[in-house]
């Protein structure tokens, strides 16, 4: 009797010690999570129903911010349109380019690690202000891009970043240019495909194009799916490039949603309005992510399904 009670109390004290130790180790994370993520998230919900300019006291206005966004704010619709255009152009092109380069680099060669470094370099530098500034001077009237075109015999004298038709393309090209991360993930995925599949298909007389569409592509669909989700979320949030390269212009042709959100919040100090905009963005990203997840039943292929 006393034996078991001693055992129980020892068990309890171990439990208590584990609880203490657990919270000690996750403590820093937990504190920052509560203070800098959870509480801001909750206050963001509240703020989205307020009018607050940081000077006077916040005023509760219900759903007025949301109603205004949809009924009165023309730039809201415009910035959404720009963001969709950017996402639908830039993400598929970046992924296709990443896959293409990964396919090319997927071979045995001593030079491949060097090539990987070169191809990844733009991605590691891409988020910086310096590269965005550089981009601006590559795509203006007498920039590197036009100079190269002229050298190839194509006369071109438009400034890509200040022409309403091409400005978005200067951002899209910059986004595609940084295809390094999805490329590395594709490369890792390609290495996972057993060589025997290709050898067997080759014995049966399948050409390289057929093997790509019947073996490589289906085997890569889980990776494509992962990359698509990650890139899509990133694409909807694009900010600094638009802020530095084109500053939203010309005529708001590159006013991406995140940039407009920033302006409303920190140029006009409409904190409530900005919060409402942020929640709409989350909702849109959520819907698209859910759609991609739903669609994955039809096109994502998992190897263990055949067994």
């Amino acid at each position: 009797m006393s034996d078991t009670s001693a055992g129980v109390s020892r068990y309890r004290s171990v439990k208590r010690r584990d609880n203490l130790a657990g919270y000690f180790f996750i403590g820093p994370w937990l504190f920052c999570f509560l203070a800098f993520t959870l509480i801001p998230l909750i206050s963001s919900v509240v703020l989205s129903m307020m009018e607050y300019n940081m000077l006077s006291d916040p005023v509760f206005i219900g759903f007025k911010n949301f109603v205004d966004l949809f009924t009165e704010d023309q730039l809201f619709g415009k910035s959404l349109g720009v963001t969709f255009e950017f996402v639908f152009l830039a993400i598929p092109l970046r992924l296709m380019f990443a896959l293409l380069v990964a396919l090319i680099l997927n071979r045995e060669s001593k030079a491949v690690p060097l090539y990987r470094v070169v191809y990844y370099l733009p991605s590691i530098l891409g988020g910086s202000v310096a590269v965005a500034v550089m981009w601006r001077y590559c795509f203006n009237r007498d920039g590197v891009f036009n100079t190269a075109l002229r050298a190839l015999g194509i006369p071109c004298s438009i400034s890509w970043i200040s022409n309403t038709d091409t400005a978005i393309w200067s951002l899209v090209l910059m986004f595609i240019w940084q295809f390094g991360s999805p490329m590395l993930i594709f490369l890792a995925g390609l290495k996972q495909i057993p060589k025997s599949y290709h050898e067997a298909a080759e014995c049966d007389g399948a050409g390289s194009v057929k093997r790509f569409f019947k073996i490589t592509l289906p085997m890569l669909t889980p990776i494509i799916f992962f990359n698509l989700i990650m890139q899509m979320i990133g694409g909807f949030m694009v900010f600094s490039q638009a802020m530095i390269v084109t500053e939203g212009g010309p005529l708001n042709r590159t006013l991406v949603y995140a940039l407009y959100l920033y302006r409303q919040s920190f140029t006009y100090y409409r904190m409530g309005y900005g919060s409402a905009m942020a929640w709409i963005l989350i909702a849109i990203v959520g819907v698209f992510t859910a759609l991609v997840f739903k669609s994955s039943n039809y096109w994502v292929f998992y190897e263990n399904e055949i067994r």
Partner: protein
Amino acid sequence: MKRRRMISTVVFHVFVAALGFIMIYPLIWMIFSSFKESSLVLKTVGQLFPSEWRIDNYVNGWAGFGNTTFATFFKNSFIVTILTVIGSVLASAMAAYGFSRIRFRGRSLWFICMMITMMVPSQILMVPQYVLFHSLGWVDTFLPLIVPEWGGRAFFIFMMMQFIAGIPKDLDEAAMIDGCGRIRMFIGIIMPLIVPAMATSAIFAFYWKWDDFMGSLLYLNSPKNYTVSIALKLFCDPTAVSDYGAMFAMCVLSLLPVIVLFLFTQRYIVEGIATSGLKT
């Protein structure tokens, strides 16, 4: 057959090298331009090599603006970045150990919360965090850029947990029986075994912080507190800039720490991305 393979190898190398060169040409162009005479930078775009190599762009650029030199901006960036890296990696390692090896009440709830934070975009936190830091009086200090990072990052925690899962539990139990406490076990046994994951995290934390533009833009108001990224943005403002040589020179300098770190650590990065899907 052999000949065909050789031709395909040559075509491969020529094509891949050419494409790689085109890709990094803008960077090369910027580096060479920074050594040209400033007034010629935008006039001699087609000519890669400067006709005369000069370093006065670097001298002129370094002088900065608003009575503040780039020495201050770089110092600020290094302070912010290094404090962030240390805090973020340590906190991540601690949390990873807690989540993977200690059974405590509420563990799965907090674990789910942590995984969800990976999906929370920074835009939604931007406004309420600003309101919070404003009310704490932290605006125009480094604190809003550093302190939130001391909780670690979900990506890092998750990656380190994968590493810890690979360490046999017998090791912990043996140490436990020998009377080794949790803290000593964490420092003496776990940390040395997850050094690769910690290194990868540290490298990414460095990149993200060094390049972070949004945080500096929101929170730093006076030139003496500017980090390189916000200083560079103002220095290169299209309406104000006239010294293009100095502009490119400072751009190159700002990339230098990242390029050097990348060249020394690219193996970690390539593996880190390939195994955990980390994105930059």
